[in-house]
């Protein structure tokens, strides 16, 4: 299974080198990867349906309890088959859709990474590796959504999607780390046995809230849903893949995966029911106000995700069964609708549903696919969608006290979804063919076969639900922790309440479709309410935050070096002063003082003279020279206290510093009185405070009990181990040689920095580019 995940990454890596040959007819070969993976996962179906759970573990960071564990159970299998199966069709479709595109190889590369990351998410048994793959899906989808990177709207949507799902990823990380600490393991399969323990722990609410944050942002739940319609700026195959089978379902997958571990509590269930129902209704109503086919589909996807979250929230066996079935139902019909939208867009150049009509005459197989998908979407028998819808009603109808309310919510959502599905799947094909589209012709079979296959599958499974009943749905429901009764999928349940509800849904939905026509006017009406939408609010927050950070930054980074230095010192004074005042008992131990010699007294007097001269001198050059005097007296003190190495280094460094200062000063104007009386006083107080603090600190260090173990070790072993008598040098080049090596590397970088800064000569053209970049 590790190879299966890696193959996607390897494929992308491979595309870097051979990509340019894969742009033409060979592009189709890329589809072999998902096809191979699909067949690979399919062969596990038999073993999984026998109740087997296949797991593999590779050591990764064993010391932290992080292993690369992979588990394939019923739930993972459904997702794996969806990811690779729909992936295969999308890969094949892309070969025709983006035929001859300049960056086709790049596109396949991103798609490969994305597929591999998705497989990693659904197969990971370790929450840390799950998080890693989760973030990889966010990052690769960022590239996919922003694929048309010369359009500003694309870039904006990509950044928005990354921002929202990226924040979710961080929440997930926090959540799983806390969860791991509570349980004591990062392995999901090991967590299964400590469900009670987690539910009773004080961190339970926090963990669940964090994981909800991750799932809701990824699965576009209200109020984080707004990135998803924006993500429609991506090429259609990407939308198909992201919305039907993969990315947005990752959040649903996460909730399902944690249902047996964290589920069945009041907090878990009610939050999911509330958020799910708001999302499904809100998004379903929104579909009424859209005229762009992709926009309609995006909102209906959000609504479907709402239904899934809602079902997981109900948490009963019937609801979880309905969720498992509905995932497949939705994947099949939504992928079909997206793919035919892509064909329509590709051939006619528009996605405006008010303009499109009569396309069945020119795109007949596509029309069939659209019709079948719309039927499945609407839940009209004998489609798979009918099965799914019945199971949803079954779940809500038997849900205790609030059964009626929940059922009504589900019915309204389904009515609106039917409307959306018909609009996308049937509306463009009915009516009269306008003259503008008379030249439209059927594209290559690579484009129309994938949606047709998916649409036919949607009907086929509806007629023969036993195909997936035992092999896929049953193990998936078991994986969710429901091991009770056997799953039975039937198309016909006889005449009962559910059938009546179903009929009502379809009836009202059809009426809606025939009486409400999408129009630009309605769309414009809803635009007026835009200022209330979460998207506007988040954007407003972003702008406000940008302003704040600009003010904050310009306050601290005002461009004056002296300002920076005093800020740093002031900060140190505050932090250090606070600690020193609280934790010091100021004991001066005079007994450790030795007698002062005449040399020391003279040196200190010279030093004080140098300092006073530096402070009060009227010329820069003299001040620098006086600073040099101070440095040299310090090196004299080193000599007195028998540290010749330090003295030598201090001496040469000080010489070079004075030279450097002089060189810099040489470039400055002769003499300017830059500081006024007030700022001098301010600086003086700051320096005296800082100096006092450092002195106190140095004296306090003397009071600390000394640990001479380390210095003794060096003194004892310098000659034995490193054959050197100069301990300082031995430490530098031998015992701590790697430190020295890093230091000279850092110094080199600094020197290159100085060289680059001073030698950089921008032309007017370069300056314009820099300005432009700053604007963005």
């Amino acid at each position, binding site marked *: 299974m590790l190879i299966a995940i890696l193959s996607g990454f390897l494929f992308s890596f491979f595309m870097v080198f051979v990509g340019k040959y894969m742009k033409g007819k060979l592009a189709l070969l890329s589809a072999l990867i998902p096809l191979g993976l699909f067949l690979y996962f399919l062969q596990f179906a038999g073993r999984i349906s026998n109740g087997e759970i296949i797991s593999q573990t590779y050591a990764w960071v064993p010391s932290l309890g992080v292993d690369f564990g992979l588990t394939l159970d019923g739930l993972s299998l459904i997702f794996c088959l969806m990811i690779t199966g729909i992936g295969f069709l999308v890969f094949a479709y892309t070969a025709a859709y983006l035929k001859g595109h300049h960056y086709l190889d790049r596109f396949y590369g991103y798609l490969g990474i994305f597929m591999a990351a998705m497989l990693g998410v659904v197969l990971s048994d370790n929450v840390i590796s799950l998080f890693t793959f989760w973030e990889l899906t966010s990052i690769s989808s960022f590239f996919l959504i922003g694929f048309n990177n010369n359009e500003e709207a694309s870039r904006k949507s990509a950044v928005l999607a990354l921002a929202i799902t990226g924040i979710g990823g961080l929440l997930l990380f926090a959540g799983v780390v806390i969860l791991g600490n509570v349980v004591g393991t990062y392995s999901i399969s090991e967590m299964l046995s400590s469900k009670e323990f987690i539910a009773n722990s004080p961190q339970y609410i926090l963990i669940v809230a964090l994981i909800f944050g991750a799932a809701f942002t990824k699965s576009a739940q209200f109020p984080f849903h707004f990135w998803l319609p924006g993500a429609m700026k991506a090429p259609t195959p990407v939308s198909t893949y992201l919305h039907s089978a993969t990315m947005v379902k990752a959040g649903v997958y996460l909730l399902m995966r944690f249902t047996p571990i964290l589920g069945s509590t009041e907090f878990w269930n009610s939050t999911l029911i509330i958020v799910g129902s708001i999302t499904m209704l809100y998004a379903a109503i929104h579909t009424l106000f859209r005229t762009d086919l992709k926009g309609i589909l995006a909102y209906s996807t959000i609504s479907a995700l709402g239904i899934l979250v809602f079902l997981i929230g109900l948490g009963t066996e019937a609801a979880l069964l309905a969720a498992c079935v509905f995932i497949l139902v939705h994947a099949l019909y939504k992928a079909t609708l997206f793919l035919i939208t892509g064909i329509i867009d590709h051939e006619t150049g528009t996605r405006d549903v008010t303009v499109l009509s009569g396309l069945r005459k020119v795109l007949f197989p596509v029309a069939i696919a659209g019709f079948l998908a719309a039927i499945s979407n609407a839940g009209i028998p004998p489609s798979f969608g009918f099965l799914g819808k019945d199971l949803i009603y079954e779940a809500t109808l038997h849900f205790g006290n609030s059964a009626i309310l929940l059922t009504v919510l589900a019915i309204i959502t389904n009515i609106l979804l039917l409307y959306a599905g018909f609009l996308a799947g049937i509306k463009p094909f009915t009516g009269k063919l306008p003259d503008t589209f008379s030249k439209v012709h059927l594209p290559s079979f690579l484009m129309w076969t994938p949606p047709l296959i998916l649409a036919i599958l949607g009907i086929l499974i509806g007629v023969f639900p036993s195909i997936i009943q035992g092999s896929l749905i049953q193990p998936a429901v078991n994986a969710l922790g429901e091991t009770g009764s056997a799953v039975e999928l039937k198309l016909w349940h006889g005449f009962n309440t559910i059938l009546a509800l179903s009929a009502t849904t379809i009836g009202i939905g059809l009426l809606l479709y025939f009486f409400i026509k999408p129009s630009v006017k309605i769309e414009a009406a809803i635009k007026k309410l835009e200022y209330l939408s979460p998207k506007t609010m988040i954007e407003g927050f972003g702008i406000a935050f940008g302003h704040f950070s600009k003010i904050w930054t310009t306050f601290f980074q005002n461009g004056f070096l002296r300002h920076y230095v005093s800020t740093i010192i002031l900060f140190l004074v505050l932090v250090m002063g606070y600690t020193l005042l609280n934790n010091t008992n100021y004991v001066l131990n005079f007994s450790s003082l030795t007698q002062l010699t005449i040399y020391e007294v003279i040196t200190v007097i010279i030093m004080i003279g140098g300092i006073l001269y530096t402070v009060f001198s009227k010329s820069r050059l003299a001040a620098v020279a006086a600073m040099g005097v101070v440095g040299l007296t310090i090196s004299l003190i080193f000599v007195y206290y028998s540290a010749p190495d330090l003295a030598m280094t201090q001496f040469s460094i000080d010489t070079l510093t004075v030279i450097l200062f002089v060189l810099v000063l040489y470039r400055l104007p002769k003499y300017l009185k830059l500081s006024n009386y007030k700022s001098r006083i301010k600086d003086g107080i700051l320096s005296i405070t800082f100096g006092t603090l450092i002195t106190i600190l140095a004296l306090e260090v003397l009071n600390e009990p000394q640990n001479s173990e380390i210095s003794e070790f060096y003194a004892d072993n310098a000659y034995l181990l490193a054959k050197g008598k100069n301990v300082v040098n031995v430490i530098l080049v031998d015992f701590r040689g790697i430190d020295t090596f890093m230091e000279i590397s850092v110094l080199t970088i600094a*020197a290159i920095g100085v060289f680059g800064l001073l030698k950089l000569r921008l032309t007017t053209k370069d300056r314009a580019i820099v300005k432009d970049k700053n604007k963005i």
Partner: protein
Amino acid sequence: MKSIILKTASNYLLPLLLLFSLFILLRGHYLPGGGFVGGLIASIAFVLHAFANGLQTTKHLLRIHPGFLMPIGLSVAFLAGISPMFLSGLPFMTGIWFPEPISVVGMIGSALFFDIGVYLVVIGISLTIIFTITESK
């Protein structure tokens, strides 16, 4: 600076100071000194020469841009670090030694070559910074 005394003196001082810096470098393992100080002394020697004779003369004397000494020095230090891995199969940065000591320098081992690397890097860094600042307009 157009002082004839300084100019004449610097011509003699440059080789002397360089020799001194080498001396400091080589004895570092036994007596005060080492690559860092040695490098600084060598840089001072060149800076002094540049002050007396002009930057162009010193640059001409050096032949290569001092910046090139940085990668050379880093490579020497790195090679000294990995040499025990190749020569004796010991871990990175373990000291290995020639069996017999030679006069003046003492024992020769990988640590000395590491110090030489530091020496070259320090010369490269200080001369690059000072020359760049001198040249900047």
